[in-house]
């Protein structure tokens, strides 16, 4: 079947959208063409609005969408879309331009101190499979805290089930034989994992991400963010079952490896995006960080107080706590001590896994 020529750009546009990872189902293309007919079109702006209404690109990708539109309908070739997923963040937190530095650095930031330099470069993960993570994934679903959901299910419970009771009754000619009951379902609490990827955490981030992958795979509702000089949501990458691929994708999303830490500011950004803050509500929050903070402790303290208010519980894991005589000495850790429920050992994936299982099972101390 040959299509009328004027339709070509519309179909090409849908194809281009699909190639760029936008949602563009045939019925949307159909709606788009019908919509263009409906709105006039008196100008290209009408066509653009029709495209927005029918394909519904997410707000954080509007620019990319418009660039594709211009390319197809105006023949204008624009720059390639930025990689990663720019979330809908407020303007207040613009942590510099995205400049990947691919050349390896001669001088590594010292592991002991948080470094000011924003080192943005992609990096490879060390391949390390561990039995501990498998055990962790197996035990996690039972261990994770549960909360009562609103949904009702049949079974033993305190609530009457009128519909089933009535049906039952009808079968016995209107005789009330017994009252059937139903109960509230239980669901896993949401888990929010925040991983500090600053220079001072360098030797721990790979392990933490492998653990995060196991956590995302085993839990029902898990969100993972990396925090350095900026905040990156990596859940999207970690939902892939294949660990190699997942970790590679995650490392591609993150742009601020081994830089400094502005944990407080990044947390504030997290909390000011309503959908992220909404996720933290009632969630089991796990932070993996040494608490070596570039910003003042006051910002971090405020953010942690707010996070603690939203969360079910906050577990803070620091690699420094591997030492049995560890005491929280840094200014930042001391400032936030009242807002966290337990300060634990985050020195290795095994230690983190152990802490999470123990804490989740009710070992809140």
């Amino acid at each position, binding site marked *: 079947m040959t299509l009328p020529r004027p339709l070509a750009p519309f179909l090409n546009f849908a194809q281009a959208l699909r190639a760029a990872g936008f949602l563009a189902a045939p019925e949307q293309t159909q709606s788009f063409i019908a919509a263009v007919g409906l709105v006039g079109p008196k100008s290209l702006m009408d066509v653009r609005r029709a495209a927005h209404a029918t394909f519904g690109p997410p707000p954080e990708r509007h620019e990319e969408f418009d660039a594709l539109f211009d390319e197809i309908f105006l023949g204008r070739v624009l720059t390639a879309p930025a990689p990663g997923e720019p979330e809908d963040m407020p303007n207040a937190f613009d942590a510099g331009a995205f400049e990947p530095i691919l050349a390896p650095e001669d001088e590594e930031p010292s592991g002991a101190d948080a470094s000011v330099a924003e080192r943005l470069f992609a990096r490879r993960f060390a391949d390390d499979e561990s039995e501990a993570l498998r055990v962790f994934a197996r035990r996690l679903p039972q261990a994770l805290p549960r909360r009562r959901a609103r*949904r009702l299910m049949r079974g033993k419970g305190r609530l009457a089930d009128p519909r089933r009771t009535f049906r039952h009754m009808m079968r016995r000619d209107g005789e009330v034989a017994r009252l059937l009951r139903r109960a509230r379902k239980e669901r896993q609490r949401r888990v929010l994992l925040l991983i500090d990827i600053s220079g001072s955490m360098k030797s721990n981030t790979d392990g933490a991400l492998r653990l995060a992958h196991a956590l995302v795979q085993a839990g029902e509702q898990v969100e993972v963010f990396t925090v350095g000089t900026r905040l990156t949501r990596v859940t999207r990458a970690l939902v892939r079952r294949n660990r190699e691929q997942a970790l590679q994708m995650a490392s591609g999303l993150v742009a601020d490896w081994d830089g400094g830490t502005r944990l407080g500011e990044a947390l*504030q950004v997290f909390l000011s995006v309503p959908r992220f*803050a909404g996720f933290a509500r009632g969630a089991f929050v796990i932070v993996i960080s040494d608490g070596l903070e570039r910003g003042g402790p006051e910002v971090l303290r405020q953010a942690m107080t707010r996070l603690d208010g939203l969360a079910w519980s906050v577990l803070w894991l620091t690699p420094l706590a591997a030492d049995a005589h560890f005491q929280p000495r840094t200014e930042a850790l001391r400032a936030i001590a009242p807002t966290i429920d337990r300060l634990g050992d985050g020195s290795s994936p095994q230690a983190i896994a152990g802490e999470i299982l123990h804490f989740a099972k009710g070992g809140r101390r």
Partner: protein
Amino acid sequence: MPVRRSILGIDGPQSLARSLRDAQYIADEGLATAAYLALALGKPLLLEGSPGVGKTEAAKAIASVMGRELVRLQCYEGIDASAAMYEWNFPRQMLAIRQAGSDYVNLYADEYLIARPMLLALQTPRDRILLIDELDRSDHEFEAFLLEFLSDFSISIPERGTIRASEPPVVIITSNRTRELHEALRRRCIYHWIGYPDPALEAEIVMMRSSVVARDTAHRVVAAVGRLRAEPLAKPPGVAETVEWAEAATILNEQGVPWPRAFARAIGVVLKDQDDLAYVAPNIDRLIMGSAA
């Protein structure tokens, strides 16, 4: 795909925008286009945006323009068919059995059926508009169920058979985007992201919503709210807060509080979170007056 170019005399985005303005709602061209297309193509309209940008208000305005009643279904986690579609009136059914004795009684007649919003909209699509509010609060089970409803606008009641709409009802869905809605659902809808309005538009909204606010006050409030929204706040102020702030400051001013002070005194109307207030307090003059002060 059934297409109707003109719906109740509305024959394009501009004419819909005009009607909405008569209904006290100022829509930008993007929203007017999306809403018009949803009506013309007979598809659900999905409105997403931060809390307080006027998603529910838009639905109310569209209902008022079309002269139809708005049936609102507020979503929550665990919402199910008995809250969204229909429920049998069990006590009345019981009574009917008792009274009937040995006579025949149809226990599944209309009088025992309690219609909930989705069934209501289906039964009388010409009189009602269905608003499914804050769909992101519901769980995946309900979303899947809604998808079925939206694809063929029918509800099957085991005791009664399938009830079909004589014409597709107008459905408006809102979401605060606390989670991503399923692609299958988004694909079926006409979509619009409502952002915060630009300053000129927001000032216009303030003046339309509140007759006591002077033009100058409206512009200053809108500028101050814009600066507040750029700060990392837990609860960025919505459009309703802007209107209330302008009103509150005007009232305080009438009672003798001088201008910049009136804004600062009424700050509790616009920021409703202790941490936000504490955060803003040191910079309050700069935020209200702009960088000049």
